[in-house]
């Protein structure tokens, strides 16, 4: 089944991963800016990273027939450093006109500190000032519930924020309800250990429905699986769910959400259901 990978950090994946994803039916990828596993020391380092995301990575993906889009920001893992965050936020606007930039992301919180919240708000203000869509990272593990609640409160402090143009990613059993009830889109991230398994993702779909929901692999430099979205489709079939429902989650919903950005060109599916 063709699919759109809504969250993949391809700068840390191999060319073989691109090959396998293309073979599995991946037609488009959206790649949020993220933490490299170590802290960058200067805003210049982010300039190089943003050039990689907007110039180099789209060409790399195109070799495999995959559309490549991106979201730009200083990642929540680095949000504690306010001076660096301010400097990076000032540099982002010059990249926003690139053809593959969908908006601001993945912004959010890590350990839910005061500085992280201020950095998050700076990015939201930037997005709204430039009419950009927003992709949000919610914290890991024990910080997820508290952080998701704080993120929603911070977003709602902006009167002109439209939740239909915001996706709050990495939802789990204890956070999805507050995300959907407040009008946001959400993603279920399929991770081997620290987020949801494909079985739990299908459980969540069965309990909350498939509206304003997609799944993603968030594959990066850590334990993660580029084949996670096709594995989700297999789990849907194992449960006896119709391919049309799986397709809504891995294809139709991403196109509906991303289609709010005029720069997103819906890929053509070779396997329409």
């Amino acid at each position, binding site marked *: 089944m063709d699919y759109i990978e809504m969250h993949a950090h391809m700068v840390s994946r191999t060319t073989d991963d691109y090959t396998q994803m293309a073979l599995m039916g991946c037609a488009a990828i959206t790649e949020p800016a993220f933490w490299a596993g170590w802290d960058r020391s200067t805003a210049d380092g982010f300039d190089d990273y943003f050039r990689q995301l907007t110039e180099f990575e789209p060409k790399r993906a195109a070799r495999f027939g995959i559309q490549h889009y991106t979201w730009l920001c200083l990642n929540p893992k680095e949000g504690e450093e306010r001076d660096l965050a301010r400097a990076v936020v000032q540099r982002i606007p010059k990249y926003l006109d690139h053809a593959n930039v969908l908006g601001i992301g993945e912004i959010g919180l890590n350990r839910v500190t005061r500085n*992280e919240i201020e950095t998050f708000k700076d990015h939201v203000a930037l997005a709204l000032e430039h009419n950009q869509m927003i992709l949000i990272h919610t914290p890991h*593990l*024990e910080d997820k519930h508290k952080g998701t609640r704080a993120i929603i409160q911070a977003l709602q402090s902006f009167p002109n924020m439209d939740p239909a143009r915001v996706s709050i990613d990495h939802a789990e059993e204890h956070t999805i309800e507050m995300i959907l009830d407040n009008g946001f889109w959400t993603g279920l991230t399929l991770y081997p250990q620290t987020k949801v398994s494909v079985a739990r993702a299908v459980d969540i779909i069965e309990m909350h*429905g498939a509206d304003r929901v997609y799944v993603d692999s968030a594959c990066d430099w850590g334990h993660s699986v580029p084949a996670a979205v096709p594995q989700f489709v297999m789990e849907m079939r194992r449960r006896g769910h119709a391919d049309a429902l799986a397709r809504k989650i891995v294809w139709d919903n991403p196109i509906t959400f991303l289609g709010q950005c005029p720069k997103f060109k819906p890929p053509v599916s070779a396997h329409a259901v």
Partner: protein
Amino acid sequence: MSGTSRPKPLPAREAVDEYFIENRHRVLDVAAFLDRLDRSGGDWRSDYRMEALVRAIAVLAEPGAGRAQRIQMIFSDPTVEPKPKLDQKAARGAWDPASEKGA
């Protein structure tokens, strides 16, 4: 496909037939992990992560749905106020009540 209808889960008997073996395996893995800790001879029960894990295991035997959500909340930070500053870069999987005393 559109609309808000929720897809139905497999009938219980079919779900048991399909998923019993892999979940039997998971329960045995947890049991073996606890045995391993006992064999180590150390005090693992006072570790805040293991205290949470033992509480979570008890939820497995409770009746009614919502176990996954209840277990998620056992591991979650229940506080509301932001941390005054970054304490550590990575989450550890369970909230440490002692961390609030030093904040």
